[in-house]
């Protein structure tokens, strides 16, 4: 390359480059002298700082707020418990320590390591919780072997306890440890790892109120892990109280009545919509969730065929059976399809659309008007009413009474239920509506699905002669009852006519007479729903097997100035009059005596 043979004159640039280098050299020297100052002249000061550097934050867990019933009976409380933490810095031989602790606490080694690994990047002197919810008996062996395990710290912390055991378990819900994923998903909530938070029920719904604010102590720890002093203490603040509309006495009676069965009792304060009792059976003891389940216990609960964790009152979907005759009556009267005086004749069976349909009372009820039809729960009357109304009018009436959608109760997980109509069937099943289906719907069978809380809410609304009701547990948090479009309101007279039938059912020897309470004017309606087709039921019955239907009762009392609405569902309970009505009767009776004693005071 010939052009390169002539060297350029680079003196100037070289001189500048050298000057910059020497400037850098001076800077390097200055840097070194500053390091001299910090490392040699100020060494003592920084050594002291390094020693006292170890500021350890210890969390003082806040007790959760109390949950009380309407009479300030404590339903959820706190008690002192113990937790064991591991300080990795004090571990001498990791393998031996892990094995020893695992034996001492009865935790498997992988579980133990898993809990420790969650915090692997925090400073070594920070305690990691490896077991909590222990009582003094559990920690005694740990305390007695302190010398062997200098890496363990035992501290006390408040722990949730439910003094009444399983009482109102489905209302209260239970607590569970927040998983790391859940903590990451909601960074705004500032939940610390391992904190127990409400998973279901009121504990979940009002978790923000119930959770207190954790306090903390900043402790200065020396290089041997000894606490040298406290820097600042922030005391924990207990969470806020939640006062429920629940009445512990009614709740207890409701649960006792259901004992040994599967079913639901819901009692609403008609005036406010407050839930007085809500029992779902079988149930569980929420205390058991606090001291972590063994895996076996947990899978037992989860796979129990009777699903004790499920709140049947808001999540159980059932056919309403004859309870639906109230909807039919309301719709029929309001639309003018029938009047209270319209009569029909029941001979025990009838032929509709070419099929023989039976009344539950084979000899037949004879001629009767609407209130007698409600009282006797006569199928024939409602078959003919259903045929006259048609599915669209029936579905609209059900929807106007709140069926097919959530009541909005302050409990998570409520189900919608289903009120079928032609459009629904075309969309989901791609099939036309058959007239025979309307006849099944007329007596609350077919594809209809309701939850007990919907039936209770509807009953309260009937009791209030159309005033809307929103069931709830906490008075102040409720949005107020849903507004009703005046165009969708039923005429007042329809309510009186239907209520007359409900009164006769309980007080004039009707199907609901089991719920009758002397001097309390109970109005109600029973229902029993087929859990299988009539044909297979007949076959089973021939084979000598007992075929039991789900039994319903829903009613309110007293007839004028109503105070309480009660809905009872007993799975496989047989006839509603025989099984469900007496359960409701016990609630009505207890409530009446409570009202009387209140008035006496």
């Amino acid at each position, binding site marked *: *390359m010939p052009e*390169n*043979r002539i*060297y*350029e*004159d*680079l003196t*100037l*640039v*070289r001189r*500048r*480059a*050298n000057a*910059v*280098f020497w400037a*850098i*050299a001076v*800077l*390097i020297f200055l*840097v*070194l002298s*500053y*390091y*001299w100052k*910090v*490392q*040699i002249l*100020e*060494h003592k*000061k*920084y*050594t002291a*700082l*390094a020693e006292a*550097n*170890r500021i350890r934050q210890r969390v003082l867990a806040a007790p959760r707020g109390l949950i009380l019933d309407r009479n300030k009976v404590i339903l959820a409380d706190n008690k002192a418990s113990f937790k064991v933490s591991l300080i990795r*810095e004090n571990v001498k031989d990791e393998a031996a320590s892990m094995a020893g602790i695992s034996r001492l606490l009865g935790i498997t080694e992988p579980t133990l390591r898993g809990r420790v690994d969650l915090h*692997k*990047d*925090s*400073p*070594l*002197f920070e305690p990691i919780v490896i077991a909590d919810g222990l009582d003094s008996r559990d920690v005694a062996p740990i305390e007695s072997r302190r010398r062997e395990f200098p890496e363990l710290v035992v501290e006390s912390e408040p722990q949730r306890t439910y003094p009444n055991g399983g009482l109102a378990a489905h209302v209260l819900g239970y607590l569970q440890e927040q998983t790391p994923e859940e903590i990451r998903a909601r960074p705004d909530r500032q939940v610390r790892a391992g904190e127990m938070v409400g998973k279901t029920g009121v504990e979940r719904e009002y978790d923000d109120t119930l959770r207190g604010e954790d306090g903390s102590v900043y402790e200065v720890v020396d*290089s041997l892990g000894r606490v040298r002093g406290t820097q600042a203490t922030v005391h924990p603040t207990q969470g806020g109280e939640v006062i429920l509309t629940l009445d512990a006495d009614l709740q207890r009676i409701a649960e006792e009545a259901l004992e040994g069965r599967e079913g639901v009792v819901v009692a609403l304060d008609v005036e406010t919509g407050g839930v007085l009792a809500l029992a779902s059976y079988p149930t569980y003891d929420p205390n058991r969730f606090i001291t972590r389940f063994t895996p076996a216990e947990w899978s037992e609960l989860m796979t129990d065929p009777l699903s004790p964790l499920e709140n049947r009152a808001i999540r159980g979907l059932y056919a309403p059976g004859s309870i639906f005759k109230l909807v039919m009556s309301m719709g029929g009267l309001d639309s003018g399809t029938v009047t209270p005086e319209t009569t029909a004749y029941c001979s025990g069976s009838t032929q509709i659309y070419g099929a023989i349909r039976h009344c539950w009372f084979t000899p037949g009820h004879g001629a009767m008007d609407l209130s007698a039809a409600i009282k006797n729960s006569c199928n024939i009357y409602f078959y003919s009413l259903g045929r006259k109304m048609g599915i669209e009018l029936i579905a609209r009436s059900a929807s106007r009474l709140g069926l097919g959608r959530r009541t909005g109760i302050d409990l998570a997980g409520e189900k919608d239920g289903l009120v079928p109509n032609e459009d629904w069937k075309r969309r989901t099943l791609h099939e036309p509506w058959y007239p025979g289906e309307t006849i099944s719907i007329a007596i609350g069978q077919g594809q209809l699905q309701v939850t007990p809380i919907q039936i209770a809410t509807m009953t309260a609304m009937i009791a209030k002669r159309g005033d809307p009701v929103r069931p709830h547990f906490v008075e102040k948090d409720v949005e107020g009852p849903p507004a009703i479009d005046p165009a969708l309101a039923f005429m007042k007279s329809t309510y009186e006519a239907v209520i007359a039938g409900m009164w006769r059912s309980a007080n004039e020897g009707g199907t609901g007479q089991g719920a009758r309470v002397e001097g309390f004017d109970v109005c109600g309606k029973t229902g029993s729903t087929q859990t299988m087709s009539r044909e297979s039921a007949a076959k089973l019955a021939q084979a000598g097997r007992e075929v039991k239907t789900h039994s319903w009762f829903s009613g309110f009392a007293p007839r004028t100035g109503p105070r309480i609405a009660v809905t009872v569902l007993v799975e496989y309970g047989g006839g509603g009059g025989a099984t469900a009505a007496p359960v409701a009767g016990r609630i009505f009776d207890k409530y009446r005596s409570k009202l009387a004693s209140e008035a006496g005071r």
Partner: protein
Amino acid sequence: MMIDRRLVREIDWVLLALILVQSLIGVFFIYSSSHFIPGAYHVRQLVWIGISFLVMLLVLAIDYKYFVSLSGYLYGLVVVLLAATLAFARLVAGTKSWITLGLMQLQPSELAKIVMILVFARLFAEYKSAYLTTQHTLGALLVAAVPLALIVAQPDLGTAMTFIAIIGGAFILAGLRKKAIIVFLLAAIVLGIGGWHLALKDYQKKRVTTLINPAGDPKGSGYQVIQSKIAIGSGGFAGKGFAKGTQSQLRFLPARHTDFIFSVIGEEAGFLGVVVVIALYFALLARMFLSVSKARDRAGVYIIFTASLLIAFQFLINVLMIIGLFPVVGITLPFLSYGGSSLLTTYVACGLVLNVKMRRFANV
């Protein structure tokens, strides 16, 4: 790609040895500061040193003149990559500086540093006057401004500062008149004030105010500086011993094996260790800078100077940053900090210096 035997003889073996010694010291302290967390960072660093060394050899094999002639295309490529990073990269820790190509993660701003060395060598190679004219100054500024703006937008303050240092160095070499220096200083002040109010994020402002008063935010951004200073100061004269520093072993120090590796050295090897590492740096930089006398042409001088300045600047900022004399801007310590892409940039820059130095005889 044959390398002439005479060329091999001209390789600065002392410089090469200094580079490797410094890197191995880094590996030791990466081990010390990270052996208790999973990741085997020291092993990964060794692999990166191997890769970077091979790339450096590759850089040596090709005449730097060829790189300089390619600098126009490289410049275009870097601008496109930086723009693409800005447009497509995911936000990592608040900045968009990484792009993923298949399995490989690229940090185009690192590549940009190298490319700017070549671009300025080319821009100023033909410029033989003692001082820059206004026209030339503005032209060179424009060339530098495009990638710089894209880096500032990421935002990657540390890289942007390094960038400005290289550019400033090139200008000084090309010759700035007093008037121009005053204008630059004024512009810097105006941009500084404007940038503080308009461009800097809150966390970045905090890092600057923390410098003045680290105790003002002891649990936040001041924490790193305080812990680092405690580590260095408590190291004393001889240090606490290898892998025995409480500050590093008990995880008080943040970014122990990356940005704050020198604090670990200060704590565990004491002032003695600090002197050794800084002396090695001094020798390294002297060997690099002073080889401008060996460059056969102007482009060579620029390459040696800006490449050396790149390493000198990052070294100085890092050792000032960790002892609280400069805001924490995320500049790694060349050769010693853990990290593949910083290591690669450093080795390529050294490769360019060696390249120029070994081709000092024009007729080769």
